[in-house]
């Protein structure tokens, strides 16, 4: 069985949903950064703030092809692969096979929590069990490919990233099994 993209030749593309750029989370982040910048200025002088800013802008420039590709994937994949379809596809499977599939989907899907959790909630509605839902969320959290390829490898030493990824590989499946056990214990 394969997960085919939607047959979309005849359909219209989905309408865009605008998001608020400045929200609470962004303001908190901004406050942290301004406070950090002020502390650096007090301790090491304003010129050090300028140096760090220049280094950061250079680093973002270096990463920009990766960031741009990642943003394109995160924006386009949900158009081609709508939520309810992925949810139905995972919901059909059961047993360990269902957990493996849910983990793989979680690892492969790009995007932040505003995309993952609505999809995970849709899983429950499509007949996936609690174990598959936990495996999906954990697969995205621990093994998300977009995040590891764009950010983790850019910041951390490669051997460290490989070791973490390798060790985390079986975890979502084990967590799915544990969640199933726990649920069975609670409701015999």
């Amino acid at each position, binding site marked *: 069985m394969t997960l085919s993209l939607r047959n979309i030749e005849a359909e219209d*593309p989905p309408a865009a949903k605008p998001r608020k750029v400045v929200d609470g989370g962004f303001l908190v982040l901004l406050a942290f*950064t301004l406070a950090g910048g002020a502390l650096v200025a007090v301790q090491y002088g304003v010129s050090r703030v300028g140096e760090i800013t220049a280094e950061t802008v250079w680093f973002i420039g270096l990463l920009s092809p990766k960031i741009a590709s990642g943003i394109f994937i995160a924006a*386009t994949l949900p158009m081609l692969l709508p939520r309810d379809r992925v949810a139905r596809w995972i919901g059909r499977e059961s047993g360990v096979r269902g957990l493996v599939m849910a983990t793989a989907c979680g690892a492969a899907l790009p995007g932040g929590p505003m995309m993952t959790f609505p999809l995970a909630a849709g899983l429950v509605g499509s007949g996936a069990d609690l174990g598959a839902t936990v495996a999906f969320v954990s697969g995205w*959290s621990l093994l998300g490919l977009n995040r590891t390829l764009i950010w983790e490898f850019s910041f*951390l030493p490669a051997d460290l990233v490989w070791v973490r990824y390798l060790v985390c590989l079986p975890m979502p499946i084990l967590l799915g099994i544990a969640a199933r056990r726990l649920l069975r214990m609670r409701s015999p």
Partner: protein
Amino acid sequence: MNILVGTLLIGVAAIWLWSRLPNAAWRAASYRAALDTLYFTSPRILVALLGAGFFAELLPEQQVRALLGRDAGLLAVGLAILLGPLTPGGAFVSFAIAAAALKAGAAPVPAIAYVTSWALFSTTKIFAYELAFMGRQLTLTRILVSLPVPFVVAALAAQLL
């Protein structure tokens, strides 16, 4: 080198996805969605990375080495796991902080424990999204079964590194 390999992999995936768009209307919609996402994401990336840079500068190396260095042992792993959920913001913030801590003298195993703990228990993710979409019971179940994971990951990583 790391950056180049990642760029190539992600780039190939993006080109493949682009080739799946059936016609001009879909391509236009995809560009619009990508621009919207860029508009939403880029200020966050800039502000988060600047903040991480400032924080790295402020990290007291002596304390980092004492609390998170090789000699701190299990205590370092425990502290790293506690700090994970408290990290605000997205993935780049936690990775940037881990990188800064490594530079300041933290050992690799606590860095792995920190990143793993952030990935599983980030309070921003849990409170802003998971509880709202998944409900209390599912969220608590996931957290409960996941509690041992950062410790197990740290123990296994210590064998491999």
